[in-house]
């Protein structure tokens, strides 16, 4: 299992040289720290999926002594591992550039990342290879596009809900949000496993 997670690094050895300038670019551009965390986290796991959309890769992985459930588990666990690594690296970079960020940024960034993973990973197994990169790209743009207006729409029109959220104490808000993210993530994991189990190579 660990070996499956580690393979992403071996495959992407060369791309990792782009990774650091990529993060630095966002930092220098003065992007929101939360957004930088999100983008940095996405880099490795989604790049890996770019490789895995090839049918050959699935044939290889499934011919090796792995179970299909393990292959999916490595994706979901790997995403978390690489998210933690990316957040660490980004934090160091932010420090180095004297940019301030709060714990909230980290939490929002990672929360959004996990949601994004939960929504897109099952799609990888539904869509035909070749379309996947496009699907991810479009859904990512849509997500970042829609997220802002939706939030402002909600805050403008449904003051009741906002007040409800505002009335919650910060810890319980975090707890609730974490719980929701975990549930969605686990659900997505389950769905991906079911889809992958039935896949034909």
């Amino acid at each position, binding site marked *: 299992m660990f*070996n499956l997670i580690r*393979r992403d690094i*071996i*495959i992407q*050895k*060369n791309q990792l040289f782009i990774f650091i300038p990529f993060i630095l670019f966002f930092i220098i551009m003065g992007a929101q720290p939360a957004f930088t965390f999100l983008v940095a986290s996405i880099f490795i796991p989604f790049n890996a999926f770019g*490789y895995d959309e090839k049918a*050959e*890769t699935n*044939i*290889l992985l*499934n*011919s*090796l*002594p*792995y*179970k299909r459930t393990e292959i999916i588990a490595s994706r979901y666990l790997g995403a978390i591992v690489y998210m933690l690594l990316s957040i660490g690296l980004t934090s160091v970079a932010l420090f180095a550039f004297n940019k301030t960020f709060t714990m909230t940024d980290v939490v929002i960034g990672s929360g959004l990342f996990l949601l994004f993973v939960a929504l897109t990973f099952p799609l990888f197994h539904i869509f035909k290879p070749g379309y996947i990169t496009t699907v991810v790209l479009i859904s990512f743009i849509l997500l970042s596009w829609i997220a802002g207006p939706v939030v402002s729409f909600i805050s403008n029109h449904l003051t009741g809900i906002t007040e409800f959220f505002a009335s919650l104490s910060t810890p319980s808000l975090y707890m609730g949000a974490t719980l929701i993210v975990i549930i969605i993530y686990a659900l997505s994991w389950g769905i991906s496993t079911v889809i992958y189990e039935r896949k*034909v*190579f």
Partner: protein
Amino acid sequence: MENVVELINVSKKFKGFSIKNIDLHVKQGFVTGFIGANGAGKSTTIKMMMNLLRPDAGEVKLFGLDYQTNEKDIKERIGFVYDSNVFFEGLNLKDIKRIVAPAYRRWDDTLFHQYVEKFELPLNKSIKTFSKGMQMKASLAIALSHHAELIIMDEPTAGLDPIFRRELLGLLQELMLDGTRTIFFSTHITTDLDRIADYIAFIQRGELVFSKSIHDVTEDYALVKGRIDLLDRDTEKAFVHVHRAPTGFEALTDNTTEVKEIFGDTVVMERASLEDIMYYFKGGIHHV
């Protein structure tokens, strides 16, 4: 354990193509060649053996185990070579080994390096710069380095030059020396099999036509040539398929003794090559 692979009444349906009730047994310690035209169902059958595809009906057993409960144990004991490169194209052999090796409990690094040396494979060049033959050698080096008991190969010789094909066949014979290994490989180049296959399984349009020892194949099947006027509705039954020409007929029989009884010395009988057999079966079966 006499049969390493057992397909019992296996069926799989696709749009416009299906595998129908295949019963196939692969004997331990021998080379089984799997022949059939392109699109006959060879790759589909191999994919079911590898659990890349699950049959709609029937049982697939390897080493007497089934995939539901023993997937990892089974795959630990298989070495696979596919007709196209399944390894990450941009990587070199060293990195591919780094990814594949930890998957196997019995990976043998010394053995791997022996094969790399023997096949003269560069460790630091990306695999997409390899020729077709080198890619095959690389797959083979990986397939052979974890003490696999069963080597499954899907069209390993397709696209290779004759010299390399010979080399490969020699290598496979070397692997058979210890008597515990089993090789199953599909091909549509039947001359590869004339030399080294012990058993032949022949698939056509998703159905297994036969699976028997190479001796039985040469004893049962023959090309028969004779004068057209020898043919009538009864005598024709002895043949799988008949080609007629103004100068005479040429036919394939699957029952040489019957043909000898019916025609005696009035016809010429020749050994049928695997290619002859495939060609005549393509023409359709007249009797069942």
